[in-house]
């Protein structure tokens, strides 16, 4: 059990260390480590987790870590995974806070930041493919997806309400 927890911590530490651009960009990282590499979860379970992490308050990144940790190793797992994903940010920011002024004006740093931004978009697109392929398999799912997307693009309705509406559509359609 201890080695599983250690493994979980290290895995989420690495995920946290590479999660530029937050929650959605984390999805390919989690999928690669949790589903492909360690095979702790199936893609279906992962989809559930993302859905729930969306609906609950708090950053998607933390919520996913907590939930995955719980599924893999119960409550100790959720604690360890959550700590793991937070630690890199903690360490980096505490180290950098003093050097911050120098950090901000360095041209190397701005070059790095400029290159990470498109990479994050690439990651989000990857997440779209990874999740879209198994989910959008039947017409009902595609319809719900399109409706949800249009509602979101309209920018009048809050995302959580959109999810609630989609849940309702799920009950009606299925």
């Amino acid at each position: 059990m201890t080695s599983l927890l250690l493994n979980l911590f290290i895995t989420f530490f690495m995920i946290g260390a590479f999660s530029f651009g937050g929650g959605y960009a984390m999805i390919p990282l989690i999928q690669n480590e949790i589903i492909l590499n360690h095979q702790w979860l199936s893609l279906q379970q992962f989809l559930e987790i993302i859905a729930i992490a969306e609906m609950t308050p708090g950053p998607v990144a933390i919520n996913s870590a907590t939930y995955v940790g719980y599924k893999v190793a119960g409550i100790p797992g959720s604690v360890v995974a959550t700590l793991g994903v937070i630690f890199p940010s903690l360490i980096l920011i505490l180290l950098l806070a003093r050097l911050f002024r120098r950090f901000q004006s360095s041209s190397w740093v701005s070059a790095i930041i400029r290159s990470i931004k498109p990479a994050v978009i690439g990651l989000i697109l990857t997440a779209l493919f990874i999740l879209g392929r198994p989910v959008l398999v039947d017409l009902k799912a595609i319809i719900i997806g399109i409706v949800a997307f249009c509602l979101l693009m309209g920018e009048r309705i809050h995302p959580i309400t959109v999810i609630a509406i989609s849940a309702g559509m799920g009950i009606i359609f299925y």
Partner: protein
Amino acid sequence: MLPLIHREIVFKKHWVSEESFCDILGVTQAVPGAMAINSAIFIGYDLAGVRGALIATLGISLPSFLIILGIAAFFTHFSESRVINEVFSGIRPAVVALIAYAGLKLGKAALSDWFGYFMAGGVLLLHLIFGLSPFFTIMIAAITGTVYYKILCRKRGIGE
């Protein structure tokens, strides 16, 4: 979450000034991890050193941590329910739509030149076709981009 942080920290408690808040935005975007957590760490450190950072982080993570645990425990018992399955069948495509929407919005802000599009597309292809781990693609992107932008600056002179 950002407007919430702004309202509480800058407006109500006056712990941080407007300019400092913009600095914080800069840091939290450069550092990996969720923006909310990073903001908490930074502001906490600013106000009360390492202890402040730890306490602020605990504060911002604890509610969602407990809520998720509750939901996880709940769903593990109710996963066989038909209604729950139907609800999830509706929520899953919505999540995909949400990711698409977020990607679109972020894409407009983040992709400013052809090189950006090239990198985003490159990362996507490296994942889908070559099956590279995201750890590698991020490093490759960072190195490629940094080299490109540094060379670009050198050619053009000083500014970007």
